[in-house]
Every structure is written in C-alpha cells, then in structure tokens.
C-alpha cells in the first residue's frame, strides 16, 4: 500500500477505536456521575400542627328511644375521643332533644359536654340552656342527662323564665319513669317565682 495511504488508514483505524470510547464516555455521564441534589431528601414535608394522632368526629349524633316511646336525640358540632378510647367523647356545642311520647319536648343546649358510653350519660358544661314546651326557658352551669331514658338533673342552681314570671331554683330534675306516666320537671332545693301582673 502506498505510504501516503497509510496515514489515512491509520487515522481511520484510530478513529474506529476512539469514537466508540467517546460515545461510551458520553453515555456513562447519564448515570455514573452523581447529580447535584438528592430529590427525596429535600421534598417539602409539612410540619404537623398539634398532635397528628388527634382524630375528630364532625357532626356526630346519637339517637335513642326509651321503653315508653320517648325519643332522645343528641347532636354536636364536633367531638373528639377522650384519651384515645371511643367510649368517652368530648363534644362541642351539644344539642339534646327529648321528644316525649305525648308530643311535648325538652331541649338541652350547651357549649361543651362529655358523653360517656359506659354510664350511658352525658355531662353538659358551660352555659347549659334548658327549654321546655311548657314555657320554661332556663340556664344552668352543669347538667347530667341519661342517654337511654328520660332522666336528667342539673348539678348547679337553675334560673330563667317560666310561663309567667322570672324563676330560680336550687336544682332541676327531669324524670319520666317512676312517678307517673307523664314526664315531670321537678324543681327542688328552694324555688322562687316573681310574677309581675303588669307585664307577665
């Protein structure tokens, strides 16, 4: 082969070696060289506000019917289990409606309450408001109501308006079972009514 042709073919020979190596080098930069940032490390995680484990029940309601047909319906805006267990629930802006078989109704409303499944009762706290279709609108500090029968009692003095006149009493007990078939509102521990004939 002519000496002049040598250099060209040697040049091509070297190219045949160098070019694949260069390609290989280029390809390896795809995965061999480490990227600047590790994507999973700095993903933006949100810092949890409060204890993330706090479950909340929104709009819980509880309904029960007594043997005599009086119905009790308890609803709340939201509730959360007390220390994790579901049998004791702290509920907020509670509304309990006792609908008697004879059509009359007593409603209990309070800012906060503790519903206890074991004793089947609810303790209402804060400004508890008691209204009855017999014309009584009263408030008290604390009240306990049973969930499976018509049985409620205030744990503090109660005051408000009766069908006629202003009204205070030491305690109010709402009972339905034993005394007679009608549900009774029993005000005890001293009762005082002030009735003004001019504006009742």
């Amino acid at each position: 082969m002519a000496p002049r042709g040598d250099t060209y073919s040697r040049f091509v020979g070297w190219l045949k070696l160098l070019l694949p190596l260069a390609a290989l080098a280029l390809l390896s930069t795809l995965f061999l060289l480490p990227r600047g940032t590790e994507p999973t490390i700095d993903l933006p995680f949100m810092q949890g506000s409060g204890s993330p484990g706090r479950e909340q029940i929104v709009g819980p309601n509880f309904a029960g019917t007594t043997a005599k047909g009086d119905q009790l319906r308890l609803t709340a805006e939201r509730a959360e289990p007390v220390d994790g267990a579901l049998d004791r629930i702290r509920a907020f802006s509670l509304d309990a409606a006792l609908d008697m078989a004879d059509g009359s109704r007593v409603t209990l409303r309070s800012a906060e309450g503790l519903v206890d499944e074991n004793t089947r009762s609810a303790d209402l706290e804060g400004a508890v408001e008691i209204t009855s279709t017999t014309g009584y609108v009263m408030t008290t500090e604390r009240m306990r109501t049973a969930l499976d029968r018509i049985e409620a009692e205030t744990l503090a003095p109660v005051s408000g308006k009766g069908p006629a006149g202003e009204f205070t009493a030491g305690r109010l007990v709402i009972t339905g079972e034993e005394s007679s078939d009608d549900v009774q509102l029993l005000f005890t521990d001293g009762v005082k009514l002030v009735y003004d004939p001019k504006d009742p």
Partner: protein
Amino acid sequence: QGAQVAFGGMQQDTDAPVEVTADQLQVNQSDGTALYTGNVVIGQGEMRLAAPRVLVIYTEGQGRIDRLEASGGVTLVSGEEAAEAERADYSIDTGTVVMTGNVLLTQGNNALTSERMVVNLEDGTAEMTGRVRTVLNQGDDAAQQ
C-alpha cells in the same frame, strides 16, 4: 247570713309583683300544670298567704296567672289581721282571696268563724258567709284558741 268586716285595713296595689317561694315545684310536662309544695308562701305587698300546696292556674294565653289554688291548711296574713282556712283561691287580677272550709278570722282578740270568706285585697274588706259566729273576748285575756 253574711258579715262584712274590714281586713288588712289598707288598700293594696293588686298590680304589685307577686312572689311565690316554696321548697319544691313540680311541672307536668304534658299539660304544664305547676304545683308548688312544701312551705309555700305567696307574697304581694303586705299580704302573705302560706300553705303546704299551691297549684298555679294559668290564663288561656299562657302568659298570665289566672289564680293560685292553695290547699291543705291555709294562713292569710295582711296587716295585723290573720285568717285561716282549709283552702284559698287567690285570683291575682281581681285581687280577691276566696277562703273556704272552717274559716277562722282573728282581729286583735276577737275571732270570727264561718264556712266561707271572700277577701277583697283592693279595698281591704272581707265578707264572711255560711254559719258566721263571732267569739268576743271580754277583758284583756288572750283569745282562747
């Protein structure tokens, strides 16, 4: 035969607020009747009506009290007079107390008994009807009960 006597001696404003205090009040949830029991005292101005049981009767409109029915031995005191009976119906708007059953009215050391007595609180008078008997005590010994 009836006897017209003065009672309480002075006019009383029957529009004054009426105060009812008692040990206990029982309200029937279905028909709304209200029964005060235990040392019930109804007070208005100078008048005090004490009884063990008082039932409240509301007017139809349920905003006013029509009358208070006291029973079980009633004592009505107004000014220096006192009257006792088995029952008394005090209607607030008309300002009258109708006492029935062994009515005994003591004025100073005189005593009158009758079956029925209607006390008008507004003009301080009382009218006794039904076997009215007067027990006059001569001298200054205390009225024998």
